């Protein structure tokens, strides 16, 4: 009651007025000297529309290591990506990653994705340059014929 009253910036007297009881009653309830009647409790919660939600009970934390089937799928893709990048994953590295937690696996995967993106951009650029060069040489060759 005290917590809610203070949060709303009310004095014991003001809350007492709202609930139709004396300030001394509020003080006694807050100090645990008397129990609030069910009617008073109901009136109190009706001021805030609803009682607060109970604290959620935290679920038991699964073991930090091991990422399950989803981790295996991601690791498989990461291994293939490393090969594509020309840096195949060594068996030791793969073993280490398979024991890593999800955060480690995720951060490594993000790095790999970025590396793949950079490689694709480079290939695209090199391809575009080669295309332009060939087209230009083809045009100049065609010009000679004319």
């Amino acid at each position, binding site marked *: 009651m005290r917590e809610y009253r203070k949060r709303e910036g009310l004095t014991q007297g003001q809350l007492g007025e709202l609930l139709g009881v004396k300030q001394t009653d509020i003080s006694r309830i807050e100090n645990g000297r008397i129990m609030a009647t069910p009617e008073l409790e109901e009136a109190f919660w009706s001021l805030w529309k609803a009682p607060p939600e109970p604290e959620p009970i935290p679920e038991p934390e699964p073991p930090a290591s091991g990422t399950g089937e989803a981790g295996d799928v991601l690791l498989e893709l990461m291994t293939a990506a490393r090969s594509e990048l020309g840096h195949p994953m060594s068996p030791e590295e793969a073993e280490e990653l398979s024991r890593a937690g999800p955060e480690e696996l995720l951060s490594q*995967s993000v790095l790999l994705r970025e590396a793949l993106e950079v490689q694709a951009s480079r290939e695209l650029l090199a391809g575009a340059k080669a*295309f332009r060069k060939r087209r230009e040489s*083809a045009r100049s060759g065609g010009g000679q014929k004319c």
Partner: protein
Amino acid sequence: MSARERTGKQLLALEIAQARAYLEGTMLREQRPEKLAEKSTLELEREAELLREAVMLRQQREVAEHVRATIERDRAALRPRSSAPTS
């Protein structure tokens, strides 16, 4: 379990099922998302996060493959054709 948590779990289960279907190349209904909702919220969150990343990595690889294929096609198109046999 509150209605909000139940909905959250259902959405996570659906996301996992969709990711698996994409990665495995299967139909969504084969993944049975309603079965996944039996797992705890934490397990579902972790699995969804890993599979989300796996999907993005796979998509990035597909982009790289597409780029390579396009470059190769362009290269082949510009390659001088073998001269026709002289009669």
